[in-house]
């Protein structure tokens, strides 16, 4: 594998030494988050270290309230950090920006805009120098990719929850972010729709290979989508508990994953951790 060769060739190793620095897309170092409360500080996260490589899909799993969402919103820049640092391609982040696209748990579309206008809102912002036709083409391309070619001009408020989240996916990919952050994007959907959207997400991701960090509660979803599953310990003072490498080949199909011998081994590993 090329990664092994590169690791051998290069001596540029970061201080906590997991991966060579030129491979790292997202680097969380000694990350800390404290919420002040009347009864003293509440430490949500402490000493959290995590490196995510380029073109890697990482899922994060952990109990409710362990600080997964806090961590993700800190990476997005929507929540200030109390200590440590977050860098993208070696550069420390300053606030939110379109280099880190977010797919929220609620679709968060502007309900008064059409599907196309919602995607264009981001595209116009990121490609200000493109012509109007080019920007339209980009937005339409991604809406087609998520299967909404018939709904360009439908108002977001007229779309079903699942379709709204498809627009959310299109909007996030269309701005071509360096990192894609997904905060339980399918948590509010029924299992059938969820499966559909996982397929759409992984299909479009296979093509774009955007480094992705996704929070989920669903063990099967975590295995199906990820290169690595990061398990977080329960809060307060949550940190990384364990990391599981998922070595299924890509592109994957749901069937091949389910039928693979290692699938239940992975699943057991994750469930053992969560039930511990």
């Amino acid at each position, binding site marked *: 594998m090329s990664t092994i060769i590169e690791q051998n060739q290069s001596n540029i190793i970061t201080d906590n030494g997991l991966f060579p620095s030129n491979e790292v897309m997202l680097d969380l170092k000694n990350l800390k988050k404290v919420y002040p409360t009347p009864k003293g500080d509440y430490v949500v996260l402490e000493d959290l270290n995590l490196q995510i490589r380029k073109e890697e899909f990482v899922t994060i799993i952990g109990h409710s309230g362990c600080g997964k969402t806090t961590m993700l919103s800190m990476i997005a820049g929507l929540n200030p950090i109390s200590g440590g640092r977050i860098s993208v391609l070696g550069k420390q982040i300053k606030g939110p920006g379109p280099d880190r696209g977010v797919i929220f748990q609620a679709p968060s579309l*502007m309900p008064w805009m059409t599907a196309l206008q919602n995607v264009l809102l981001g595209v116009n912002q990121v490609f200000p120098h493109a012509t109007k036709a080019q920007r339209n083409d980009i937005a339409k391309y991604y809406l087609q990719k998520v299967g909404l070619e018939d709904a360009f001009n439908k108002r977001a408020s007229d779309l079903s929850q699942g379709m709204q989240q498809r627009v959310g996916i299109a909007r996030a990919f269309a701005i071509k972010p360096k990192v894609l952050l997904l905060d339980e994007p399918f948590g509010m959907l029924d299992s059938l729709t969820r499966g559909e959207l996982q397929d759409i997400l992984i299909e479009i991701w296979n093509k774009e290979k955007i480094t992705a960090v996704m929070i989920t509660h669903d063990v099967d979803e975590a295995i199906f989508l990820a290169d690595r599953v990061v398990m977080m310990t329960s809060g307060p003072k949550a940190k990384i508990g364990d990391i599981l490498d998922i070595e299924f080949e890509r592109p994957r199909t749901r069937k091949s994953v389910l039928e693979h011998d290692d699938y239940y081994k992975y699943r057991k590993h994750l469930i053992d951790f969560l039930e511990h």
Partner: protein
Amino acid sequence: MKQSLTLGKVTKFIGLGFLSTIKDLFTGNIDKEDFKTLLRKTIVPLASILLFIGLWHMGAKALYNKEADFKIEKALTDQGQAAADAMEACIASGDVSCKPNTLPSPSQVWDSYKSLLRDHNIIAADKAAFKEKTAALNEKRVADGLDEITYTGRPSFVDQIFRSLKTVFAGFLLALLIAVPLGIFIGLSPTLKSAFNWFIQIFKPVSPVVWYLLVFMIVKTLLIDSNEDSSFTISFISVGLCSMWATLVNTAMGVSSVDKDYINVAKVLKLGSFQKIFKVVLPSSLPLIFTGLKITLSVAWMVLIAIELLAQSPGLGLFVWEEFQNGANDSNAKIIVAMFVIGIIGFLLDRLMLTIQNWVSFDKTDAI
């Protein structure tokens, strides 16, 4: 996508959905459930209107008799039997000099309504004739750089209505132009919010009468050099200032309570402040802004009558006041006509706002 515009959609849109049920009744496609709805929405209000008119009629009659009896009784004790008989005959004849002056009956009000319309037609004809007569002269005067000769006769009831509507719309526009931008700024900035909060809290409950006096003090001085009649200016400014508070408060609330998810999207996309306000904040607060505007318009219409009366500005308010002072035979009936006209126009203005709100707002379920 093209949507067909049906009667049902249109009537529902303007809040008169029962009209389409009536249409269904005539075209024959109606089931039992619809029929029940139809009954509830048309027959029941109709019956209650009839009941109301009936009670009014009886009440007016009772008041009339009470005052008539009192007059006869008084004539009897003061001047004796002959005077009492004369009074009774006089009242029975319906003579103006002795007729009891009390709540008019529905039929009297209806007669007054018709007489007001007749009066309007006469005045309108008069005006048209005047215009025709002076057309050539006016042309010449304009060519010579002189002012045109305008009709200065008494305004009709219908003219008063339009004058009132003009005042209310001018006031509403003023309220809109002040309250919406100010509300947006207050909603966006906590600093401005605390700067303006005392101002809003203190001035919101001030009575229309006081607003009028305040505006009067200021405008009178500002227009001291002008010979023009300032009553219109004073009344529309007072109406605007009285009624703008609901819009101001609602706009500020709408703007400051935009869904956090939308704000996060705007942050992630790094929208500039202009884009953020016009693409995210304003559209999402439109339902609340419109609720405010709806209240503003109905308050404007309500205070207008009192303010026109004070400002001696022509319109329905002045009409009511003049009729009251006039004390003619049918003055009371005319006042009641004006009351109904005011009520019905108020209702129509509310419907108008609702229609506009449905038109521009994304949140169709919110509109009541």
